[in-house]
């Protein structure tokens, strides 16, 4: 960097990410124009479908729950200087953990079974992340490559288990038997209905509360705890960490354990909250969306919640949009995710430099 980029804090945390999101939507608008559709009416359908109805809003918040977990997972590793792109595989294994726990302990009551299922998800997700973490910390294998390989290993493993081992004998579909009723996390419309508040039915379930609690926990951990401080030191300067008596290897493994456990939240929301069984490809590529969410949210829990809401709107609105304008399929959301990762992640310097330049000129003009 030729000149240090001195930016006011608000510009760094709000303006630069906002600019990259705006740029991403402009490019997405060009893609919509390019395939001969109207971007303005597309935006209207998108917002109408995701926020315009009670049902749509419920679905939006359901997707948001998924994205908060995977976004936090990427963020915690990111603070330790690790790039965990294995969220997809970790969530897949977490799904296995959920299924093994709740389908084998069916005799337990719900108030025990649900927490145990959540712990199962966290433990399996953490274990699947711990191996790449250990290999990075102790053997120096690059975490990016090992987490990629572990994503593929997870997808191969889950196909094998669902087709050959866990499938119900009489079922043709590669999925487990339905979870016991008491292991299902209640839907929000059921809970509110029970206390007399009627809202439209949707997939939204109480896992959202868990996601918000996890965000608060991550904030406490990263910014208010000893461990979080150690994580951030290792992330910004591993050799300084050694001088401060912090073991980067230990922190690397801990950060990956936490990251994998958080990715497991995706399985809790999708399986215990909605599908009520383990099935193939329930992660639907959300693990990668988590990267976009974390980059956009600047790896801060508040930013991640906001970015997750945006992606929730895109996923739910995108489904409605595909219904109204069939040429714009839901793949559009993947495109927007990709562009946001490109702008907010890889081309970040572009906007930072532009903004820094502007501020410098303003300062000169005032002087």
């Amino acid at each position: 960097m030729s000149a240090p980029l001195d930016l006011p804090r608000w510009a760094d945390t709000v303006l630069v990410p906002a600019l990259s999101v705006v740029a991403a939507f402009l490019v997405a608008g060009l893609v919509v124009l390019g395939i001969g559709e109207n971007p303005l009416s597309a935006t209207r359908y998108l917002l109408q479908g995701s926020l315009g109805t009670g049902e749509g809003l419920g679905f939006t918040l359901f997707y948001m729950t998924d994205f908060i977990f995977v976004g936090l997972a990427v963020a915690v590793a990111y603070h330790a200087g690790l790039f965990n792109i294995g969220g997809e595989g970790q969530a897949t294994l977490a799904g296995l953990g959920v299924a093994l726990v709740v389908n084998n302990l069916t005799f337990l009551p719900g108030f025990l079974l649900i927490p145990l299922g959540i712990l199962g998800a966290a433990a399996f997700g953490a274990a699947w992340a711990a191996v790449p973490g250990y290999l990075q910390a102790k053997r120096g294998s690059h975490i990016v490559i090992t987490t990629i390989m572990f994503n593929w290993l997870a997808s191969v493993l889950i196909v094998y288990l669902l087709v050959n081992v866990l499938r119900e004998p009489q079922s043709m579909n590669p999925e487990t038997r339905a979870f016991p009723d008491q292991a299902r996390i209640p839907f929000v419309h059921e809970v509110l209905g029970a206390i007399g508040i009627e809202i439209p039915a949707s997939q939204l379930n109480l896992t959202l509360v868990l996601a918000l609690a996890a965000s608060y926990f991550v904030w406490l951990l990263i910014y208010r705890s000893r461990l979080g401080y150690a994580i951030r030191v290792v992330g910004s300067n591993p050799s300084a960490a050694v001088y401060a008596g912090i073991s980067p290897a230990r922190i690397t493994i801990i950060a990956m354990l936490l990251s994998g456990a958080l990715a497991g939240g995706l399985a809790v929301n999708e399986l215990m909250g909605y599908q009520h069984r383990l099935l193939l490809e329930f992660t639907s590529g959300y693990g990668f969306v988590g990267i976009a969410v974390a980059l956009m949210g600047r790896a801060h829990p508040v930013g991640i919640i906001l970015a997750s809401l945006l992606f929730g709107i895109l996923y739910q609105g995108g489904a409605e949009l595909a219904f109204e304008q069939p040429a714009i399929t839901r793949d559009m959301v993947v495109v927007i995710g990709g562009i946001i990762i490109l702008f907010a992640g890889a081309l970040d310097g572009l906007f930072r430099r532009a903004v820094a330049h502007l501020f410098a000129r303003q300062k000169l003009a005032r002087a």
Partner: protein
Amino acid sequence: MDLGILVTIFDSALRLSIPLLAACLAGLWSERSGVVDIGLEGKMLVAAFAGAAGAYAFGSAWAGLLAGILASIAIGLVHGFASISQRGNQIVSGVAINMLAAGLTAIVGNAWYGQGGRTPPLEGDQRFGAVLFGHSALVYVVLLAVPVTWFVLGRTRFGLRLRAVGENPAAVDTAGISVTGLRYTAVIIAGVLCGLAGVYLSVGQAAGFLPNMTAGRGFIALAALIFAKWRAWPALGACFLFGLLDASANQLQGLSLPGIGEVPVQAIQALPYLMTVILLAGVIGKAIPPRAAGVPYVKER
């Protein structure tokens, strides 16, 4: 097992290893110059789509090849701009490119042809026909790329400079050679090779494009690259090995081996990933990437 089966397996192993090999060599060029490329998958996918669309539009497989290569180079230049000019995070850029490619090919394919993202089936001159031993010209072009890569990288002045830029860019810069220029050249060469890989899939092997048809081959190529320790001839070996695994998985499906019983296909499918992890862990040998791979070069300092 008789000879016929062995020949069949060898033949299909070769077919399956060609796209891996082209993508693997693409990664080799890029990473040897210091630009980490996990967007091989995305470039292949875009090339597969553009190749099929081009071949369909112009009625010629070669026009498709050109379209595929150009599209792949274009995506490669986006990666180059982010990682060389903007000094952005190369991994992040690669992830973005993979997502963009998966989404864009599906959307544009659906908008153009209305067949759920597929291109119309290619036939006749729109496909690469067999020229020798039942294989198309693309197969031989890709195989030829191995000695060419070995020779150019290992035996020419340009190759020496390119390798140096991946190990110690500051030294190259001091010698008055453009780091940026060399890296962009490498990224473009990688684009051409990924283009070959993608077009081979949609115009050579299959008769048209299917959404997400690369199905993780870009990542297997990445695994092969590590396995080959970033060298050209071992890359041929690694890709052929992974192709052979794939081919034998198809052959062994439902067969029972004496003494082992039925081998699940998934066990064979998992092998390339598993072997790469084990290799990276340094249990058998050590895979050391080019020293400056993934590090943006900053001139002043």
